[in-house]
């Protein structure tokens, strides 16, 4: 599938607007009126006509700013009901914001819900014409594209059956095929990759990658962090109608996942109640290889856990450290006993210890380090600290396993 777009450099020479951002939102606020009762509706109507802002409402978006330049791909993540769809609808000019400035240049293709322009009684082919008309194509343009659309949708002879007999996956295929045929300068998609089957998803992603490589601009709303990381350079995290975080797609998706990991984590243990008559951890912290205290490390960076333990009997305490991900998933832990480690006595009843993590293998994310004092059977004390590993990766899991892709040998014999 070709992505025929005017090259940005030539168009910018002719059109000064081309240099401006495709999408520019400033202070976008959207209030939805509460219209549960007829009285609410009357009051809302009056305030709309008189342009007064005193209607009963709830706020879906609260002062959101967003700038998308030509050729950028921006992911929008957030929980259900966070305001993602409202934001996309505002950019697609389906919804007018209550306040704030919207400027959207260029030809916009919006897939706010696949199959939305479709009429269930009509065949797939008839619906292609109707939705191309809705997207602003002329009849001639649509006729030239219909074969390509049918081919891309790849739903066989179902194309001449009424849409109401389609599975949701088939409707999605057709919807995506129509949207791509529009060759928009800005493509807005809301959770559309989630519906198709595996092979169609791959086809869509391949098309989107080609579209982006050809200078297309993408706004992708998805619950799949994989899709956001694969397709987007930047990401926006919307929470309760406001921007919680904006930045590099890798950073935002990591923070977002961490947020969910923390949300689903079991409640933290109650504050520690260290008894002075038992061995306890006085303090612990993490630092870089050069000895500066830090709680954020790059993936693969060497870091050191430093700490001070107290033993009432002035004996070297037995220590245990454990690393868990923010959601409580254990990653790794180890005993000082097993290594035959003895902390250094730095003061009466005070022992300093350190654990060096050479080129740490943790994947980017938020982690908790727990340090314990114990004897053979009993856990005396738990000290907890948090740290973050940053980096860009598409690896899965908790740690990076040392590995290499090597030539295959085939089946022997």
């Amino acid at each position, binding site marked *: 599938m070709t992505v025929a777009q005017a090259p940005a450099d030539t168009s910018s020479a002719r059109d000064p607007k081309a240099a401006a951002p495709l999408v520019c939102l400033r202070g976008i606020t959207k209030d939805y009126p509460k219209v549960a009762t007829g009285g609410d509706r009357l009051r809302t109507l009056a305030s709309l006509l008189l342009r007064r802002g005193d209607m009963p409402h709830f706020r879906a978006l609260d002062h959101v700013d967003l700038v998308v330049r030509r050729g950028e791909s921006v992911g929008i993540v957030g929980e259900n009901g966070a305001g993602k769809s409202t934001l996309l609808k505002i950019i697609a000019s389906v919804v007018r914001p209550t*306040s704030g400035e919207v400027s959207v240049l260029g030809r916009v293709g919006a897939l706010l819900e696949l199959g939305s322009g479709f009429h269930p*009684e009509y065949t797939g082919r008839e619906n292609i014409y109707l939705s191309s008309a809705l997207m*602003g194509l002329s009849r001639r343009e649509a006729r030239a594209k219909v074969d390509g659309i049918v081919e891309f949708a790849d739903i066989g002879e179902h194309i001449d059956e009424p849409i109401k007999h389609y599975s949701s996956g088939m409707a999605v295929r057709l919807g995506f095929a129509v949207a791509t045929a529009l060759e928009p300068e800005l493509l807005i998609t809301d959770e559309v990759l989630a519906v198709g089957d595996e092979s169609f998803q791959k086809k869509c992603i391949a098309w989107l990658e080609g579209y982006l490589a050809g200078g297309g601009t993408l706004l992708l709303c998805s619950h799949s962090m994989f899709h956001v990381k694969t397709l987007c350079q930047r990401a926006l995290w919307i929470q309760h109608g406001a921007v919680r975080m904006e930045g590099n797609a890798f950073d935002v998706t990591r923070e977002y996942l961490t947020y969910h990991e923390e949300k689903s984590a079991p409640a933290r243990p109650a504050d520690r109640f260290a008894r002075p008559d038992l061995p306890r951890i006085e303090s612990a912290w993490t630092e870089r290889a050069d000895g500066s205290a830090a709680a954020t490390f790059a993936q693969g960076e060497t870091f050191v856990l430093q700490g001070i333990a107290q033993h009432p009997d002035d004996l070297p305490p037995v220590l245990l450290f454990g690393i868990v991900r923010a959601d409580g998933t254990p990653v790794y832990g180890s005993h000082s006993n097993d290594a035959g480690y003895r902390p250094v006595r730095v003061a009466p009843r005070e022992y300093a210890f350190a654990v060096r993590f050479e080129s740490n293998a943790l994947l980017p994310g938020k982690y908790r380090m727990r340090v314990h004092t114990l004897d053979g059977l009993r856990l005396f004390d738990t000290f907890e600290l948090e740290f973050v590993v940053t980096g860009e990766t598409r690896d899965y899991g908790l740690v990076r396993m040392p590995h290499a892709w090597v030539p295959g040998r085939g089946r022997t014999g």
Partner: protein
Amino acid sequence: MGIVPSSTSATSPRWGWLLLSFARREVLDRYAGSASGLAWTLLHPLAQLAIFAFVFSRIFRIGVPAAYPGVDYVSFVAIALWPWIMFSEGIQRALGSIAANAGLVRKVAFPHRLLVFASMIGTCAVHCAGYLAVLLVLRLAGEPIRLSGLPYAFVLLVPYMLLATGLAAFLAALQTLLRDVEHVVQVLLQMLFYASPILYPASLVPASLQGVVHANPLGWFSERLREVLLRGSAPVPGDLAIAIACVAVFALGLWFFERLSPHFEDFL
């Protein structure tokens, strides 16, 4: 608050095809799934005509005024009845068009007025065909209908339907926000039907109410259509005046609609 629409500007001629698609859908959807399809759209007004003709000419014995010699009551009513059906049915269909296409309004950016226009165009297209057919049949049956008056009759229908479209736009916007409108409109349309000289000649109205009848644009159009089609009347200055008034209603209704249309999504 500023919205700078992209190339999806509402004035773009590309929407012409969408409007036609909507109108076509409006016509085809009417009786989708019914065996006789479009035949119902012709049979329904014919049945109404038969009932009115029987009740008013046989039972109430309303006569055709002397100004129309040799004209049967059926022709007299038919000429004003079909435009009325376009007027009232168009308004009623346009009224529900926003809610009926809620899926589109909530998810796709397009000028919502196209839905109102398409309802009116679809309704007019269907009933214009029926109107022509009925006039031709009456002519063949020997009624003194002047086919030479047809072009001007259809010119008169333009402001008549613009009036309907303006009212429809106003009411459709209101209906989207307030669900009560359709019930009120049903009653109002019924009152308007009997208050307008469609089933009876304007001359039958008591002198004290003549002013009201003449101020009613529906009465004006009904009387003028009869004069044009039965007596070959030429255009009169009043036609232009009433056309200007209809265009004004159309513009006002559309202005009101456009004022509320960005908020439709909030209410669907």
